């Protein structure tokens, strides 16, 4: 038996164990679930140690002697004081530093998420699509204006906004169903193809 065949067999066993929950809760499912959590943690710790701590902390400080790395390294390690009642306040310093980076992103976020979107929504109405975008934007904005009761003609206009939102939610839900089925297809492709060799 090759290494690939053994690894496929183990993967197939755990996939089927997880799927068995669809029938009812059982020891195979519980075992696979506990194994998944354990393996995930066991996998993440050495991975982060090898791919983050060694190249970005240990090597620069102890091999290349770039001692300025000590400043961010020490600041980052202050996070661990969150577990201390008396010294918990120290963990706020790296958080403050992180907030400064958020502040740096505000102007560009305004540009990307607001200004460009608003500018594109103000294009001339020269096609059905641009008309629908105009109608949808205006009616949805009116729907979220709560200082006026949604009655009479105003209520009918805001109803159009509700329809646009329903179409949006429907599209999102349809895509979500598609995504979940795709993930199931991926697993079944593995079981039927890689494991059993039934897919040609």
């Amino acid at each position, binding site marked *: 038996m090759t290494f690939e065949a053994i690894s496929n067999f183990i993967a197939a066993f755990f996939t089927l164990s997880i799927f068995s929950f669809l029938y009812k809760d059982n020891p195979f499912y519980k075992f696979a679930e506990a194994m998944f959590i354990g393996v995930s943690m066991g996998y993440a710790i050495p*991975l982060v140690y090898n791919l*983050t701590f060694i190249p970005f902390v240990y090597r620069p400080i102890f091999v290349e002697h770039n001692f300025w790395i000590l400043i961010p390294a020490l600041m980052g390690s202050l996070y661990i004081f969150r577990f201390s009642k008396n010294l918990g306040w120290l963990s706020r310093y790296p958080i403050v530093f992180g907030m400064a980076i958020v502040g740096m992103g505000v102007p560009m976020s305004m540009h990307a*998420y607001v200004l460009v979107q608003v500018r*594109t929504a103000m294009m001339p109405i020269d096609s059905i699509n641009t008309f629908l975008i105009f109608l949808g934007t205006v009616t949805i904005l009116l729907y979220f204006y709560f200082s006026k009761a949604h009655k009479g003609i105003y209520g009918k206009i805001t109803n159009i906004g509700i329809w646009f939102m329903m179409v949006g939610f429907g599209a999102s839900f349809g895509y979500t169903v*598609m*995504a979940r089925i795709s993930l199931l*297809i*991926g697993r079944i*492709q593995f079981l039927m193809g890689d494991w059993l060799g039934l897919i*040609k």
Partner: protein
Amino acid sequence: MAKTKMNFFDRMQALDRRYIYLVVALAIILPLIIPFNSKTYVTEPVENIYKKIDSFSGRKDRAVLMCFSHDASTMAELFPMEVAILRHCFQRNVQVFTICFMPPAKPLMDFALQTAKEDYTVQSGVDYVNFGYKPYGIFLPIVLGMGDDISKAVETDDEGRIVSNLEIMKEIKNYNEMNLVVDFAASAAVQTWITYARARFGANVAAGVTAVMAADNFPYLQTGQLIGMLAGLKGAAEYEKLVDVFATHKEMVNGVETVVPRSFSKEILKESWIKLSDIKNPVYKTARTGMNAQTVAHIMIIVFIALGNIGYFVNKKKNEN
């Protein structure tokens, strides 16, 4: 006590959900085992990415950056599109950079590169370079730094080599040359590229996202902040088809089947018909075989939704009467 007679809809409404799971499972398993050629229609956002990458063909002063921002849980949707784009780049001699900022994405990135280069004689550092895993903490400095100098922002590649010394970097400096960033994500990661690389440096950004994230990204397509998007397994199937129809197009030359790439054309695409059973490597048609199953599963779900709704209204009317 006399039993109330249940009609068809009552029985459907009281159906054990495990029967529905069984039907959905069969709706997926059978089309995978007994494959058929469901037609793959290629949409404009996918075409745009293909055309952009194809326009870099053979140019040493252009490159594509592929950013892997997902873990194994969404591999079924994203891995086929990553392999398809890498195949396109290797086949058409387009320089590629790969990078990731999540530890679980690293083995997937390596696996995608290994899978795609199996059929090509490409050399690391010359035709492509894997920048490897960089901690998420330096994501922003790297995205911004690449606007000035990629070599300084990334410093070393996955093999520990100094990036500025690599042959592939001779004519590549920043986003002016590395003119397309494709982010593969199951999250809003692509929006960081839009916010920083696009807004500040005018880089072309494209997204390869899970279907769940597709609806969130359509506003950026409409504004042109994204030049294109591959949405879920369907997007991957479309790109696979484009690669087969154009980049790896085969013709008989002197009695030998030879790969003769051709330029993108809507007319050729409309007339093209690729039989999935003719494609020998199953990895190159993963998304399209998956879409066969997806088609049947979607029909089943539509039937269930219709039956559920009809049953609801029939019972409602019966109770009113």
